[in-house]
């Protein structure tokens, strides 16, 4: 215990102090002191930071090299299923939950058959798919022994903004290693507000720093705790053998959306009135360039590419700008646009929507039929 009038410092020595006799000291007299920051302390700080980064990066690199890719709901399952298939599908749909929930391969195939095209389609949609993950899945498709004839790419959702999502195993995996550039590019081409982009940028940097320095990686090896169970998706999705309407899916994530993101007549009306955020032309061009780079990789491997814009009343104004930019950058590419005023009568009815972003099974079937019909033309070319 420190006694009054003297301080026992942490070095075990006693600093004699005149604090007890400071009655006449004004407290406003500048104190003469040795500088806190000296050349030696700066040199030591630089050395300390260097060692900090060196060890951190070492841990991170070792971890990434010695641990498999984390299990990611739907994505891991689809990748595994795609690799194990006996037959290669003719058409592969890539995209987010608006592909995952909206494209019923059986109906697409039936529609194609009705116009005389025998083809097998495959739904490779993954909920919350961002650009780095799209790049990864594209890589799976391109490196498979046999390749499909056509890849239909849905406009991916804008870059993540929420830090906790970025710090999930999935988020960290797709922000480190070979995905760093794609993740930064995704933020650069962020198609939302400037504030959203700033938040996305800041949080992406934080998550990347965490991944770069191996935050928590030794703890996850030495004291592994049970992670939160991944959302249980219906088996039908995994095998692509069937299509499971969203309203019958008990997955907690999708059920919760009913509460925090319900579809309303107001959203539909506002979307059709052209309200909502519209990205600038430069941002749209950036996004188009980002997608075109991906399309070029498919084309370079001899695959056909089509661009799908799924119905989403919240994003009608937003998607229109992006679609125009993508179409301008790829004049010969088929654009399957179902998110415009022309599609209103068919899709923008409250009864067809489960939540603000996903259609019910009935809506999905209707869209799949329309997609199939348009693909008849595309494949016929």
């Amino acid at each position, binding site marked *: 215990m420190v006694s*009054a009038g003297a301080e026992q*410092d942490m070095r075990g020595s006693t600093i004699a102090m005149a604090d007890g006799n400071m009655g006449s000291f004004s407290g406003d007299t500048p*104190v003469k*002191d040795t500088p806190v920051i000296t050349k030696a302390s700066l040199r030591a700080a630089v050395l300390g930071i260097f060692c900090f980064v060196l*060890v951190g990066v070492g841990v991170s690199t070792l971890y990434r090299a010695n641990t498999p890719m984390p299990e990611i709901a739907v994505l891991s399952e689809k990748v595994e299923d795609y690799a194990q298939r006996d037959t290669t599908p003719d058409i592969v749909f890539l995209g987010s939950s608006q592909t995952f929930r909206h494209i019923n391969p059986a109906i697409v195939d039936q529609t194609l058959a009705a116009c005389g095209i025998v083809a097998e389609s495959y739904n490779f949609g993954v909920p919350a798919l961002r650009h780095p993950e799209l790049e990864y899945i594209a890589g799976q498709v391109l490196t498979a022994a046999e390749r499909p004839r056509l890849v239909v790419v849905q406009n991916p959702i804008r870059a993540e903004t929420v830090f906790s999502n970025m710090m999930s195993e999935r988020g960290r995996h797709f922000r480190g290693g070979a995905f760093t550039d794609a993740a930064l590019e995704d933020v650069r081409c962020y198609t939302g507000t400037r504030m959203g982009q700033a938040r996305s940028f800041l949080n992406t940097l934080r998550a990347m720093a965490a991944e770069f320095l191996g935050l928590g990686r030794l703890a996850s090896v030495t004291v592994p705790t049970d992670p939160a169970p991944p959302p249980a998706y219906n088996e039908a999705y995994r095998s692509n053998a069937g299509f499971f309407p969203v309203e019958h899916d008990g997955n907690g994530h999708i059920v919760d959306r009913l509460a925090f993101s319900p579809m309303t007549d107001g959203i539909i009306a506002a979307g059709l009135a052209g309200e909502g955020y519209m990205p600038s032309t430069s941002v749209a061009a950036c996004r188009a360039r980002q997608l075109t780079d991906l399309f070029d990789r498919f084309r370079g491997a001899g695959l056909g590419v089509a661009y799908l814009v799924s119905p989403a009343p919240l994003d009608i104004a937003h998607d229109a700008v992006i679609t125009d930019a993508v179409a301008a950058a790829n004049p010969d590419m088929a654009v399957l646009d179902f998110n415009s005023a022309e599609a209103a009568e068919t899709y923008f009815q409250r009864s067809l929507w489960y939540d603000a972003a996903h259609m019910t099974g009935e809506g999905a079937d209707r869209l799949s039929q329309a997609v199939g019909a348009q693909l008849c033309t595309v494949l016929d070319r």
Partner: protein
Amino acid sequence: MLFVEPRFFVFFAVVAALYWAIRTNAPRKYLLLAASYGFYAVWDVRFLSLILFCTALNYVVARYYVAPGHPRAKLAFWIAIWGNLAVLALFKYFNFFADSLVDLASLGGVTLTHSTLNIVLPVGISFYTFQAMSYLIDVRRKDIQAETSFTNVALYIAFFPQLVAGPIVRAADFLPQLKRARIRADVAIQPALILFMLGFIKKACISDNIAPFVDEIFANPAAYTTEAVISGVLLYGVQIYCDFSGYSDMAIATAMLLGYQFPKNFDAPYLSSSITIFWRRWHISLSSWLRDYLYIPLGGNRLSAAKRDRNLMTTMVLGGLWHGASYNFLIWGFLHGLALIVNREWARRFAFLKGKIPLADLWGTLATIYWVFLAWIFFRAETLPEAWQIAVTWLTLHSPGTDDMAFAAWPFLIGFAGIHFLGHRYNVLERAERAPLEPFAALYGAVAALAIAFLPTGYRPFVYFQF
């Protein structure tokens, strides 16, 4: 804002840079006061007014009324003491006592209802009210003079390193340090950095990593095997020690880096060979506060053995209640009070055995740990039945459950015991000060990176923040 969060590092870096850039004492104190209130406001801005009330009450009464010869000194002193206690009672104990009254009445067949105010517990209220009261009591006892500077009193109560979870600093130790500007020679940088790192590792890398396993065991003790439940109790003992002493280390180190000295709060408590020694080493700032302001005024051990025992028990039960308003904390305090009484009686009756029992210290340490960990069960458990279930397993070494704990607890516990022992034996801080600067910095950087690699995902609040 936790000491282990990146935003605290940014906050502290800014405050420290400005602090050392200022060359005069008064502006430095304004800076620290503003930073301290800002630090607290991040927790809950509403309760800043409570700190200000507490500060003003104790400053005014000590300065203008509790002066020697003032005709109403005694009255003013007691009004202020009860004012402090009223704040604590309202925010911390109101619901507990109201519920207890309703329960008691229902036992007698009387149905009472009360509308619970749903009062939120302000962070750190127990710490800063105790500090404020100690200032007032010291002035009343003439141990120190009433402070003329409001800023000094405000900073003493709200200084951010100790504001939310101690150590409970005495005015006699801290106020003199505010009288002159701290200089570079007041700061032992390398020991301070090491102390902060040790605290960080204890809190973030040890306590937070084992917490999920402890939570699981305490949430459903009946499902687990005897070994798992025993491990869970032992791990909790490690968790709370690392959590609280880790926080204290970081608080002391943070203050050191600004040139201020805080008292030591922990001193290898699990190596204590008796419960009396344990209380000289565990949460030292609280135990010495209770000793000086409660136990001794009650009569301490100057009276008969029976009254001494009564004083001990009163002090420990109230010490238990200080932690929180629940029967579990009451029982925790009672168990410690009982152990202290038995320990005193043992020492008196069996004094002739001193030096004659082989390995007496070791047996004493084991017995102390056994009892302290039994008491931790009541400290940690959410409910009394849950505590009882675990205590029965601890006492009988039998649990009906079949689930094993998914954590290699025993190697960890043995490793912790070894480090606890070695840490006590070798003064790391002393060695740190003698270490050459550049190798120290290199090693520090490497250890910091390893510590970050051992962080669990997500932060847990400090256990003692709830008190």
